[in-house]
């Protein structure tokens, strides 16, 4: 088993009356891409800031790279590459100036550590004289990642790096993370996009400050023990309303252009017949494999 790099035990955090995290227990191992998946407001950013020593937990202990996040914050900060949720570089400085500044903050320079960022930075290097504020969303994220990497950190913490980035750039970004991982980097990353979960080695599903489950994406999906139906129809909302009065209903929810449906007794109760009886004649029902989102919704309801 690989070394544990981050260990949270019994971590809680609240802001005033709002409970951001409740009794989080989590271990993250060396060399993995660990994804924290959850909707906005689930507590992902709070968790990351706690790990990055930017917040102090109300209770519980966090150990990062063997250091205590409260006592030894200085030691952690030297070895950490952190990319906050919103774009936090100097918009009035050029690409190159931003990178040079962050390199100097950590007492290094671009030339010395160019090999660390080459894969990422080479993609935006043609625009190095451009002001950071004038970059596209995808390029901004590549620059931010370069800045987080320039001091050769032992651990990368990326808070929603792909939010607000186009699909192509998102895919490129995840490919870069994969290559970093192959070089031995440990990456803690969060995303609200369920489809990105399968690119992680392990994921934690987070909702309302609570971890619903931690496992590999495959195992999370394998634990989904319902038969999943996808229903194609023009009148999705009406169908969901009708399904919720079905005796055998477990869950019925909108998933993109489809209605996803799970039921308690798929053997005895025929959903197709039920919908027919309810007057939805022309529906296309088929069984499908669940994805992370289905698992997430399933866990959320339990």
């Amino acid at each position, binding site marked *: 088993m690989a070394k544990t790099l981050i260990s949270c035990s019994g971590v809680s955090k609240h802001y005033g009356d709002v409970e951001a995290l409740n009794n989080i227990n989590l271990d993250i191992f060396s060399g993995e891409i660990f994804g924290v998946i959850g909707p906005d407001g689930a507590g992902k950013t709070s968790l990351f800031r706690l790990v990055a020593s*930017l917040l102090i937990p109300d209770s519980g202990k966090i150990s990062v790279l063997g250091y205590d996040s409260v006592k030894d914050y200085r030691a952690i900060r030297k070895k950490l590459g*952190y990319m906050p949720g919103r774009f936090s570089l100097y918009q009035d400085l050029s690409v190159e100036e931003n990178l*040079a500044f962050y390199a*100097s*903050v950590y007492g290094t320079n671009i030339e010395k550590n160019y090999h660390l960022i080459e894969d990422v930075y080479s993609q935006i290097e043609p625009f190095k004289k451009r002001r950071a504020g004038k970059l596209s969303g995808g390029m901004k994220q590549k620059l931010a990642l370069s800045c987080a990497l320039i001091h050769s950190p032992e651990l990368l913490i990326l808070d929603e790096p792909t939010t607000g980035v186009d699909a192509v750039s998102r895919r490129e970004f995840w490919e870069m993370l994969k290559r970093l991982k192959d070089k031995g980097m440990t990456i803690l990353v969060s995303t609200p996009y369920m489809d990105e979960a399968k690119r992680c080695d392990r994921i934690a599903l987070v909702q309302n400050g609570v971890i619903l489950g931690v496992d590999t994406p495959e195992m999370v999906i394998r634990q989904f023990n319902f038969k999943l139906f996808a229903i194609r129809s023009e009148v999705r909302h009406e169908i969901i309303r009708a399904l919720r009065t079905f005796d055998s209903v477990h869950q019925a929810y909108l998933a993109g252009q489809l209605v996803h449906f799970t039921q308690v007794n798929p053997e005895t109760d025929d959903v197709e017949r039920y919908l027919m009886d309810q007057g939805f004649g022309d529906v296309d029902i088929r069984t499908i494999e669940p994805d992370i989102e289905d698992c997430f919704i399933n866990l959320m309801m339990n």
Partner: protein
Amino acid sequence: MNRFLSFVKKEFQHIFRDRKTLLILFGMPVAQLLIFGYVITNDFRNIGIAVMDQARDQKSELLVNRIFSSGYFLNRGQVYNIDEISSKFKSGKVKAVLVIEPSFTNNLIGKGEARVQILTDASDPNLASTIVGYLSGIIYKFQMDDVPFSEARGIIAETRMVYNENLEGAFMFVPGTIALILMLISALLTSISVTREKEVGTMEVLLVSPLKPALIIAGKVTPYVFLAFANGIVILLLSYFVFGVPVEGSLILLLLALLLYITLSLSIGIFFSTLASTQQVAMFLSLFALMLPTVLLSGFIYPIENMPWPLQWLSLILPPRWFIVILKDIMLKGNGIAYIWDEGLILIGMTVFFIAISIKKFKIRLES
């Protein structure tokens, strides 16, 4: 050191790329200096004056009594020879000296004509001319009440302004304006530049880096020390060439005082930025906590001597109050360090205080 220099370089880049800030930095002082300060009115009482009574006879002592019983003046003691007068003025406590000629009573009754001289410290020209007006009024009334009508052609009061013989208004408002503008610009710009990083989110990245709070603060302040100093020199040149305000004292001493005051103002700005989390709050703090008290209480427009005690006490904690004294001493009176070291020490003390609590209050984490 390398970290520090690149931090400073980055700050300069922010400043020079933000045209609006540059405009504030160099445009506002020039405009304010040119616009400020002609219309200034004063309430008038408890002005310190000294008397050089060379007669010490019946009528002269009666006149002196009249003056001090008027309620407008405080007796700051006797002067016995001419040489003392200038040191009285330089102390700052004496705004005017009344000189009464020898054999005042004899001359007044015998010749029907006696002379007095009113010397005023005109580095504050409004105050000086008001003093002359009030003293002349008291002398005239004394003459009407206490000198038998037939005996007298009268008391001839001769006036002389010391330090600023032509009563230039600019002499008064230039030091005040310099103090006000430098304080405002320095505090405003630094507090905004720090809170901007908090708002934009870059502070989060700086915090998570191994940079020490003292280094972040020093890096923020250094560029503004240079800029505000350049600014102060522009204002001094402007006041010299446009308004003809002299620099009687040591130019080096003046520049050192300027540097000290700027550092103090910047440290106040940093202190504000530890209190405020948005640029707007920082701006309000600078404007209301600094500008209004500076205008009203620092002695810039309203003489401190005329304020009620609580406000006089309050004015003690205002840096501009002390800096204005230093400026007037050096620029108008030509005083050396012997006269301003105590004000200087107060400013140094304040600087140390604000820097210390800023470093202490500077959050090494995000507030929670």
